[in-house]
């Protein structure tokens, strides 16, 4: 057990993956000498060389497109998109090529490409630096979409993502990069599979469903609610596609109430899918409609407004209260 930050855990996980498999490459803007603007790839170029840790030209479509080519040649590229809001120039390569090429080839092609995206707000940044674009990718068949929420998961999940033969969109909660926790780097035995959710707090009254940065927020809300005598279960989804349906449905069937929390705009967000699916599967168990606490259905606002825009403890508890209004 070592205590480390989430960003360090990602760094160690990538280092381990690179040591284990010489085909693993890192690519992106400023990932080399600088170690990335968040230092997640710090020191990797020094230790693995410029051929394996590639500072690329400034073009996201180019990053994903050439990563696909490298994967076709047998490499396993891990691409960094510098900030969530800059993934869109790569949308075509991700949606029409990365996601669809394996099926296009009738299985002859595997594309083990990981696209790392620091995501979410709460860091006081300017426009395009606080987005939560996961729903664009959960709607894109052929991709796996995961989000880590804590250092221990970050360490294991990044390695699992790199080892997956499918393309993985890997969301990293940038405002949690510096939060520290224990990480067991000694063994891989106990690792939860990449597609599995994890119940991070047990409860009986309402199920809170979250991923990435909002897991912590939900845990705080659950702690606060406990003081008021309400027992909230918190599930860290970890994987958005595929979704760990058994874990989610079991919980909601027990509690009868669910609140989904994400930073992305509610309208057509990933929470919509989750709510719709829970309602289909747990209709008779629901005491209230599945509610969503998320970003408003607007562009991400200037940072002076983000505390209002982002779901926080109060907004989560408000949604919880509302589920009891039914």
């Amino acid at each position, binding site marked *: 057990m070592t205590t480390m930050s989430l960003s360090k855990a990602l760094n160690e996980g990538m280092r381990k993956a690179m040591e284990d498999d010489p085909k693993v490459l890192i690519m992106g803007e400023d990932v080399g000498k600088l170690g990335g603007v968040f230092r997640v790839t710090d020191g990797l170029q020094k230790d693995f060389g410029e051929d394996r840790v590639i500072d690329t030209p400034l073009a996201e479509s*180019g990053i994903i497109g050439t990563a696909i080519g490298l994967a*076709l*040649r047998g490499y396993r590229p891990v691409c960094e998109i510098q900030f969530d809001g800059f993934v869109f120039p790569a949308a075509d390569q991700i949606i029409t*090529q990365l996601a669809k090429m394996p099926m296009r080839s009738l299985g002859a092609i595997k594309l083990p490409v990981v696209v790392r995206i620091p995501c979410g707000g709460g860091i006081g940044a300017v426009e395009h630096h606080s987005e939560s674009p996961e729903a664009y990718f959960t709607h894109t068949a*052929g991709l796996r979409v995961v989000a880590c929420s804590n250092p221990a998961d970050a360490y294991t999940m990044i390695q699992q993502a790199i080892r997956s033969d499918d393309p993985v969109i890997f969301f990293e909660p940038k405002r949690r990069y510096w939060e520290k926790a224990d990480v067991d780097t000694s063994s891989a035995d106990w690792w939860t599979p990449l597609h599995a959710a994890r119940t991070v707090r047990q409860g009986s009254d309402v199920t809170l469903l979250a991923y990435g940065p909002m897991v912590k927020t939900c845990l705080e809300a659950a702690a606060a609610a406990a003081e008021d005598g309400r027992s909230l279960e918190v599930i860290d989804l970890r994987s958005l596609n595929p*979704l760990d349906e058994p874990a989610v449905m079991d919980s909601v069937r027990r509690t009868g109430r669910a609140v989904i929390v994400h930073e992305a705009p509610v309208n057509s967000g990933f929470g919509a899918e989750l709510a719709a699916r829970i309602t289909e599967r747990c209709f008779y168990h629901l005491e209230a409609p599945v509610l969503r606490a998320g970003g408003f259905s607007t562009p991400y606002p200037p940072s002076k407004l983000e505390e209002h825009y982002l779901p926080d403890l109060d907004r989560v508890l408000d949604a919880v209260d509302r589920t009891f209004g039914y």
Partner: protein
Amino acid sequence: MTTDASRGAEAPPDLVQLLTPEGERVEHPDYDIDLTPEEVRSLYRDLVLVRRIDLEAVALQRQGELGIWASLLGQEAAQIGSGRALTDADMAFPTYREHGVAWCRDVDPVKLLGLFRGVNHGGWDPKEHNFHLYTIVIGSQTLHAVGYAMGIQRDDANAATIVYFGDGATSQGDVNESFIWASVFNAPIVFFCQNNQWAISEPLERQTRIPLYRRASGFGFPGIRVDGNDVFACLAVTRKALEAARTGQGPTLVEAFTYRMGAHTTTDDPTRYRVASELEAWKLKDPIERVKAYLFKNEHADQEFFDSVAAEADQLGADLRRRCLALPDPGPLAIFDHVYSEPHALMEQERAQFAAYLEGFQA
């Protein structure tokens, strides 16, 4: 705004040509090629056979056996010339029109038909042939090709990559990004642009105001314009560019100056946007006729040879037709196959539900 008026009959001055439309061998200071009569006959055979494949596919589409077809008519020399320049170790990335290159890579022609018939999106294993799947999103394969070439660099392999694209594609951001990547990383790649003068209904002037091969100069690597209807020149130029790539000299852009003799695809009607005289002028530059003339004039082939190739072509066409009709339709549950390489709960769930639904009809 037209600054490149060479779309019509005259050959532009900066064109590498080794064989005239009349079948005369000409010299070029930078490019030469020494082909045995045997080799020339073999190229002729390639040209005739791929034209026949194409013709058969057009006919199959007309008869409703294919949903659509993108004809290579007129571009045979560009494709056979460049395709025959490749070694086994080289890797080729096509668009949707490179049936001639596929032929050079030993892809069974019937496998090309799958995507146009709608039984699959791509029917061969790229690794088996070092020939990637057809790519429909204009330009996106150029980046895959550069990435692949970067892999070749890392493997220290004696190989190069070639990527095909059209004149229209040169306007896409991806294609220009691929030029940057290739140049910055000095990747072993040949950018092979078949300038067939049209992107559907749009003439070259909608994409550029200077000759396309000059685009490369803006990115710091050489660009060459070759007579795309001259199989000798296409072979010589591509060979040299590939060899440069293999030996660490980085990328080259080859513009094969040619003409799309047919419609953009079988659903297109070119009479809406281009004049018949243009087509007539280009007919005089046919890529096959000039090789035939050369073989005849130099007495490298006799009528028997031409007849035998024609017969082989007929045989190939008939065979292709037969095997096209025999292509099996995929079963409904194939929808869920290969979406993921590893097990995926949602795929399994939807597959099972749909299977049950289908069974409901049988009950």
